[in-house]
């Protein structure tokens, strides 16, 4: 069934047992992103220490795709440099824009390749990107903040 390409088991696992969910007290910045077309929301706390993502946590409400994708993203970027996280983010964005033509680089994207099927459902791409865009926003703010004297 075509649905199975969208809702892979790993996505449903992350949806039911999300990682890094529940806002941690430790944070440099907090961002709140919404998907205005459906009302899904994510609040993300981020700490960056010496250019490395040292702590990331989130809370939110949304569909299985947005929640699973945010969970997968937080797992991927934790402990990585922001620069490396951006490489992953760019790669993931490219996968989402691929209209089902790419499988995704599993070495780089790990569990996120399970979201490749989303790219065949244009209405759901924004769901998959919600948490990732929140991370991008938070990391820019965290870096800007740390550069100030």
């Amino acid at each position: 069934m075509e649905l199975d390409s969208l809702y892979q088991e790993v996505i449903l696992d992350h949806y039911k047992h999300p990682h890094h969910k529940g806002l941690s007290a430790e944070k440099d910045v907090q961002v709140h992103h919404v998907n205005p077309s459906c009302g899904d929301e994510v609040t993300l706390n981020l700490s960056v220490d010496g250019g490395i993502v040292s702590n990331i946590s989130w809370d939110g409400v949304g569909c299985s795709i947005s929640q699973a994708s945010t969970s997968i993203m937080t797992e991927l970027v934790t402990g990585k440099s922001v620069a490396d996280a951006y490489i992953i983010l760019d790669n993931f964005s490219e996968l989402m824009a691929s209209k089902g033509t790419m499988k995704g680089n599993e070495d780089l994207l790990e569990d996120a390749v399970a979201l490749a099927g989303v790219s065949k459902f244009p209405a759901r791409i924004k769901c998959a990107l919600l948490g990732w865009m929140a991370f991008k926003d938070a990391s820019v703010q965290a870096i800007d903040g740390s550069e100030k004297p």
Partner: protein
Amino acid sequence: MKDFPILRRSMRGGKRLTYLDSGATSQKPQSVIDAQSTFYAEKNAAVHRGAHLLAEEADAAYEGARKIVANFIGAEIDEVVFTKSATESINAIAYSFSNSGAGSRFSLKPGDSIVVTEMEHHANLIPWQQLARRTGATLKWIPVTQEGRLDYSTLDHLVDSSTKVLAFTHQSNVLGTINDVAQLVAAAKKVGALTVLDACQSVPHFAVDVKSLGVDFLAFSGHKTLGPTGIGILWGRAELLDAMEPYLYGGSMIESVTMESATWAPAPRKFEAGVPNMAGAVGFGAALEYLNSLGMENVHAWEQELTQYALDKFSELKGVTVIGPKDAIDRGAVISFTVEGIHPHDVGQVLDQHGIAVRTGHHCAWPLMKKYGITGTTRASFYIYNTLADIDTLVAGVISAQEYFKVI
């Protein structure tokens, strides 16, 4: 159904289309598609200008459509303004008010209030929020009960001598609730407030007569009423339209112009600056004629039957909650529901796999979702081309979503 070509197309996996999203936009009968196409093929010219045969015929077609609209809602012809959408119609009223000079009956100031309801579509909320912001007036709202009805017990203290405008929906696009227009109009009349009725979800579905409703303004859209997109209606009582300021300026809407100033043509022309959506108006006229041929009483009766059947079927579903009145009294053919353990987007995705088109999300009524403590619903909205079998397909689809996500 045979009149609606889109209903013959196939969906994912070759499934037939079960279209349950008419609250967002209705499908179009062939006669509407043909009317637009014929206008372009045979009569296209700019209306209200030009002295050639085409301009005369285009004029007759455009003004003929206005007459059909007026007859459909029991209005005078000059009380019907063509806009691009119901959203524009409501904004037009709000902007006309703020274009009025101090002391005019349309001008608002600090201390005045605008009253809306908690169940408004964003299109009948934000224009009033912004009018309040521009004028310093206060925005108030009539709350919604848990059952999805307006709390009329609050009317007396919310609608008071400070109230200048009472804007409300005829039928909620989320809950299906049909509001008690007579009671709301009476409350407004008592304090001399103007009433604005959002009729987007009522005019397509049952007979609406502006004179008997007693409201001052009414807005609805063409595309939810079997007509084309890009055409909406603003109706206002003649003496109000005469006294109001325009909100868009330019060609067609003037009486005379000098380099320093201009005067306005009488309504409705005053509110129709620029070359209008002529083909859209003509297509809309064809849509209303189609509805006339069915009879709005029959449309309403059929939708009542669909609503009752859907409510009965939904009441038997485990883990499914209908948001809105559970009985078919004063209620339109819209069923919003939540499914325990499954987000509306995911419900909609599984339904889509079965060829069922529904709306998911907040339905442009975000405050109402917050009121009920939910992020969104799945909404099935029905129209003349739907059948009881469509509801059976929907119910089977919901169960299949529950099975897919292993919540039952």
